[in-house]
């Protein structure tokens, strides 16, 4: 009986042993097959444009300071390391950091920037005069995997000695000698904690912690602990100590910023101090090491006193263990927490980032975007974005009557490149959510009218800016038998108006009649040529903007107009490089002429007129006197949508104002969206619209009541551009010169 029991027991033991061996073999397979090839999911990093400073560049010292603070530079009294700047009157000194651009590695150095009247007048690098300074770009966000982990990989050799030794002093003093776990380590941690009167060290080795983070769940069960122990031993067997330590430095969790999890010391250094890991001070290193024990508990932003206490404890242990001297510890203890001021620099511009992501998704899989560590360089201009946000806030405050539901969206592009440089998707600019700039579906109102007139002006044998159009009542029978009778906004009729006047005054009836005459299908084609890519209905009301469009659609259309008839894709991305810094893709400047130059020149004439004598004229008080802009306002039925689209020589802005529930705003395009548009353009546009007049354009004097040719100086005379040969043939009976009587007398008298 006893023998039988022994045999059964032995068999059970053997079976258990085999099971354990199989389990260990399985764990070994997991370790050996994954650790060497452990590839972190590296999120994509999205950068703003780099600010390039050159002699003559227009920038104020306040803008420069904001830019430098935005990229994490610190204002100091004396420069002694990269990432610092000093402002002395109109001279700014800065110590730049190294930065690898897609096309160039720029090494950090000491620079001075001298400003006069908000312009750069002198630049130096290490005391030598230079003509161009390329500042590193601001990180504006990332594309993270679903679990939200973000990290910057670092090699062990790049990490300060004090940080690695200090980490081991706190977390695992036996690291170099143990085989994965340490009984003495557990005892020592217990003893250290006892001496300190609180928990300052843990019993798990670095290897165990790494295994737990890599492979296991955070459950506190016995089976998980046993598994951790086995895997730690196996990991030590397979990997070198340095590999394990490097893995730990990159893996460790150090806090949270919204959905973004901060992993690794390199990212932790940037996140909390905006300082590269190589340049961390002892006080900063100690704080990060201290946070390993409880990133939330010792979060220096939420619990600064607790974090400082923890940091000082860590410094004390370091001094005792000989990692640093007592003097160094004493000095470090006196240091402030030294956190970066603007900790929420990331994901501050969710609406723009959403556009970047959509453009990326056209070419990259979500998985690649969140794992390959791509670096994405965009055209985003933080300075313009801040100004747009401020203009939106002030503009809405001036027109909204305190109604917080009144929404707005704007898209800003650079006229000469089609790059989207700023964008707002709603009045709460820093919140992600419904992005009206990209996803609102609203009628375009009168913003479509330029397409109708452009189509007419392209037919110079039939139309010119001086063509007489009919501004009279219209009844149009729709395909379903209903009768549609559009009206002008002011519900009056002017009889005959000239084409340019109809556009400047945004009259509905001449536009609809002209659209019917030209054909809705051709108006639609013109809109498509100008850049509208969403669905456009071929209906009689198309000149009045019927359909559903987002501000970005209208920005594409007006970009072509602003660029002089050249269609260019609205780009956010300039270049993408891989995690090793190798260029993957460039998005070069490209143009496609879709409108002939002279027709566009004539259209520009009318759009310039909108700002001088048309619906936009009342916005002039918000613009500098010497800034020439061209624009078009738009208002949909009952003022549900207020639009304003216009451009200077350098910037195009399209702005929409309305309610999400489609109720009336009681605002015209000028009184609503125009208030935001003008505030922004008035403060940011630097160049007037000033394209060279095509040679095939001629100027002629016409009578602005009849459209007939007339003479300079005649009553109602106005000089307007024509395609050469399309000037009106018929003339008024006024043939005058600027000095008609004197000329006649001179001739008569032979004088």
């Amino acid at each position, binding site marked *: 009986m006893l023998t039988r029991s022994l045999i059964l027991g032995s068999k059970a033991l053997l079976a258990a042993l085999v099971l354990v061996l199989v389990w260990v073999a399985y764990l070994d397979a997991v370790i050996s097959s994954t650790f060497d090839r452990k590839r972190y999911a590296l999120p994509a990093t999205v950068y703003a444009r780099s600010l390039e400073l050159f002699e003559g560049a227009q920038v104020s010292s306040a803008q420069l300071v904001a830019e430098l603070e935005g990229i994490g530079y610190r204002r100091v009294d004396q420069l002694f390391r990269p990432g610092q700047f000093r402002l002395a009157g109109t001279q700014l000194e800065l110590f730049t950091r190294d930065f690898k651009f897609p096309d160039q590695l720029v090494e950090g150095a000491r620079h001075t920037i001298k400003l006069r009247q908000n312009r750069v007048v002198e630049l130096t690098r290490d005391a030598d005069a230079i003509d161009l300074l390329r500042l590193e770009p601001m990180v504006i966000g990332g594309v993270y995997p679903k679990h939200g982990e973000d990290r910057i990989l670092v090699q062990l050799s790049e990490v300060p000695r004090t940080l690695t030794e200090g980490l081991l002093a706190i977390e695992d003093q036996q690291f170099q000698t143990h085989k994965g776990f340490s009984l003495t380590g557990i005892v020592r941690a217990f003893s250290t904690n006892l001496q300190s009167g609180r928990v300052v060290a843990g019993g798990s080795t670095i290897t165990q912690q790494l295994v737990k983070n890599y492979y296991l769940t955070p459950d506190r069960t016995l089976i998980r602990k046993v598994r951790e122990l086995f895997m730690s031993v196996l990991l030590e067997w397979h990997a070198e100590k340095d590999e394990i330590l490097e893995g730990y430095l990159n893996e460790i969790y150090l806090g949270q910023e919204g959905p973004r999890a901060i992993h690794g010391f390199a990212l932790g250094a940037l996140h909390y101090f905006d300082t590269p890991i190589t340049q961390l001070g002892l006080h900063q290193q100690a704080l990060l090491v201290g946070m390993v024990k409880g990133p939330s508990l010792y979060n220096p932003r939420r619990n600064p006193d607790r974090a400082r206490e923890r940091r000082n404890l860590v410094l004390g242990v370091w001094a005792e263990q000989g990692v640093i001297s007592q003097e160094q510890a004493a000095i470090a203890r006196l240091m402030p927490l030294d956190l970066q001021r603007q900790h929420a620099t990331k994901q501050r511009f969710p609406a723009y980032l959403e556009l970047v992501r959509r453009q990326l998704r056209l070419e990259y899989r979500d998985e690649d975007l969140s794992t390959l560590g791509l670096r994405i360089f965009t055209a985003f201009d933080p300075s313009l974005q801040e100004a747009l946000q401020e203009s939106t806030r002030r503009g809405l405050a001036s027109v909204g009557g305190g109604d917080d539901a009144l929404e707005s969206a704007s898209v800003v592009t650079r006229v*000469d490149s089609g790059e989207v440089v700023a964008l707002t998707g709603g009045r709460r600019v820093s919140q992600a959510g419904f992005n009206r700039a990209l996803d609102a579906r609203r009628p375009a109102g009168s913003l479509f009218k330029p397409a109708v007139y452009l189509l007419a002006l392209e037919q110079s044998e039939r139309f010119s800016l001086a063509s007489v159009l009919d501004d009279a009542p219209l009844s149009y029978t729709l395909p379903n038998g209903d009768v549609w009778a559009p009206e002008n906004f002011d519900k009056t009729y002017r009889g005959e108006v000239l084409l340019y006047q109809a556009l400047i005054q945004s009259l509905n009836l001449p536009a609809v009649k002209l659209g019917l005459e030209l054909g809705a299908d051709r108006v639609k084609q013109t809109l498509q040529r100008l850049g509208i890519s969403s669905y456009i209905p071929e209906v009689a009301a198309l000149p009045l903007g019927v359909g559903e469009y987002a501000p970005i659609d209208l920005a594409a259309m007006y970009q072509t107009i602003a660029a002089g008839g050249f269609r260019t894709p609205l780009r956010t991305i300039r270049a993408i490089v891989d995690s090793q810094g190798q260029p993957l893709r460039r998005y070069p400047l490209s143009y496609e002429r879709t409108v002939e130059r002279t027709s566009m020149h004539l259209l520009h004439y009318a759009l310039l007129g909108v700002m001088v004598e048309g619906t936009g004229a009342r916005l002039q008080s918000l613009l500098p006197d010497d800034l020439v802009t061209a624009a078009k306002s738009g208002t949909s039925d009952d003022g549900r949508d207020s639009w304003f689209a216009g451009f200077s020589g350098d910037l195009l802005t399209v702005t929409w104002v309305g309610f999400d529930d489609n109720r009336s705003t009681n605002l015209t395009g000028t009184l609503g969206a125009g208030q935001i548009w003008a505030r922004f353009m008035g403060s940011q546009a630097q160049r007037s619209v000033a394209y060279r007049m095509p040679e095939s354009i001629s100027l002629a004097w016409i009578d602005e009541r009849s459209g007939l040719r007339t003479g300079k100086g005649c009553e109602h005379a106005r000089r307007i551009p024509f395609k050469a040969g399309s000037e009106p043939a018929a003339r008024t009976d006024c043939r005058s010169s600027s000095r008609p009587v004197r000329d006649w007398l001179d001739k008569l008298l032979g004088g």
Partner: protein
Amino acid sequence: MVQWRRYVMILAASVIAGCAAPMVREVEETTPKLPPSVMVEPALSPAYFRLLDEGEALLESEDITGAIALFERAQRIHADDARVYLAIARAYAVAGDERSAMAMAERGLLYCKSAEKCRELDQFVR
């Protein structure tokens, strides 16, 4: 006598002119102002010319992508100068992309400020 007849003629002529000629007035220049047919050359930054030169050097060494990247940086500094469009047009032409070269040159025509520069750009367009 001659003098007297001269004054009578002036008076008569004035009356005739006043009755026969339409009422005239001096008017302001066209509103809105028309773009100038001859544009003034603005002061350009040395950095702009350096980037153009460096781009040309890359173009000569057949690094077309690098050259265009530098030209685009130059364009961000002075987007209203025709030289940069001519430079990019040449780069596209070297790359064999005639269509892009033509579009770029045509865009540059909007900014050309001298007959010579306009002619050079025009060569790509024709």
